[in-house]
């Protein structure tokens, strides 16, 4: 099995001495879907943001596709960091589409500017992705003309356009109503069936159980419990996990 993400003992302390990650280790192999669940403030999102370089770790090691991003708190050089950033795609809770670009340009811009692809090639890739997302008729629209669910699908297409090895989702449905949530979950499910490697931070327990190969429950900056989806969600062993999932399992 090819290892896509390896995280070893990462720690993150914010300036005000608040330790948000207290030594997290896990790995994700090619084709796996890892879901991370846990209460707000447990460090799930911060962990994801450390992998996608939006935050820096204070200590620990992160390797993406065998390439070292940070080793025991020492970061790789700029060039390596840039290469590594393109290996993962990140989907945000509030989409963060570029409002001044059309849907099509949102999906092509980075291909042209960063990967130096031709406009034609980028547009062909983009149209294919938009079609998969059921948005081929919206290519010329602007993000403000779309529903939240449609915007999130565009942002998934935008991330996929750079052909990342792994897709990271940071609470992709938390800004959506239940109907639109279903829309996005269906897309992620489909990606899972196509063996896309993914790490999903989510509050959708049933969804996490159904699509994941592995689940991590985090609280207070540590991994409290991890294992097969059924075990963690339906038969948690730790009291903290039981309490967190009480409402879901009752």
């Amino acid at each position, binding site marked *: 099995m090819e290892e896509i993400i390896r995280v070893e003992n990462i720690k993150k302390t914010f300036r005000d001495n608040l330790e948000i990650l207290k030594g997290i280790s896990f790995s994700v192999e090619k084709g796996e879907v890892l879901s991370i669940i846990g209460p707000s403030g447990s460090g799930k999102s911060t962990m994801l943001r450390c992998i996608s370089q939006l935050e820096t770790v204070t200590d620990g090691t992160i390797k993406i596709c065998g390439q070292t991003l940070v080793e025991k708190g020492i970061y790789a050089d700029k060039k390596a960091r840039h290469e590594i950033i393109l290996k*993962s795609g*990140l989907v945000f809770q509030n989409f963060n589409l570029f409002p*001044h670009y059309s849907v099509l340009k949102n999906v092509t811009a980075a291909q042209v500017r960063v990967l130096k692809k031709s406009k034609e090639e980028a547009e062909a890739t983009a149209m294919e992705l938009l079609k998969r997302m059921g948005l081929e008729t919206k290519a010329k629209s602007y993000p403000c003309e779309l529903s939240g669910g449609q915007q999130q699908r565009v942002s998934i297409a935008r991330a996929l356009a750079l052909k990342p090895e792994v897709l990271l989702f940071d609470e992709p449905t938390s800004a959506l109503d239940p109907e639109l949530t279903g829309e996005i979950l269906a897309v992620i499910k489909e990606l899972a069936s196509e063996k896309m490697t993914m790490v999903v931070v989510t509050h959708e327990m049933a969804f996490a159980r159904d699509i994941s190969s592995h689940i991590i429950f985090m609280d207070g900056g540590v991994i409290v419990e991890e294992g097969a989806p059924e075990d963690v969600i339906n038969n948690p062993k730790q009291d903290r996990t039981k309490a967190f999932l009480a409402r879901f399992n009752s």
Partner: protein
Amino acid sequence: MPDRYIKMLQAMLTGSVTSLEVFFLTILFSIPLALPVAMGRMSRHKLLSATTNVFLLIIRGTPLMLQLLVVYFGPGLFIRWLVLRGYDVSFKWNRFVAAIVALSVNYAAYFAEIYRGGIESIPKGQYEAAKVLGYTPARTFFSIVLPQVIKRIVPAMGNEVITLVKDTALVSVIGVSELLMVAKERQGAMFSFVPLFIAGVFYFIMNWIVSIAFQRLEKKLAYYN
């Protein structure tokens, strides 16, 4: 038409051309100059941002008319001071150039604060989205942030530009014969209110055009929210 009216109109035409030159040259220099000023103000480098802040406070905290006087007469007084101490230096300041320098610096200060407001209003998520897509900070600024900033600052910029049209009249304080100065001369010479009225109409029409231009620009940028 009596001869003196033709003469008056000719003089006022020359005056309005000067006013227009002052206006356009100030726009030309202050709009780009304001960008590094805004960057300096927002810099994480403490000394740079503090220095820029002091500069902004002085420019925005003193009358433009005073600044025109300082820029025009200041260098001459400094040279005189040097000459009195035995230095062999000479310097000739052109009033028109001095007027453009003073106005451009003054307007750059106001524009810089507008730019800063615009730049700071762009959500952090835009920078983050660009970063994970592999954009460099410079590319993020020029292709993601700046276009959105322009849309947001257009109304505030329109206000400033309208003020600039009227502020061009201040350059007469250092003897640049712009429209209002010519009108005042003619009013005295002809003992007539007409020159002042014509000058008023000129500023009014000029600002009418400016506001139409800004309205069009706002509409053009209204294709997204």
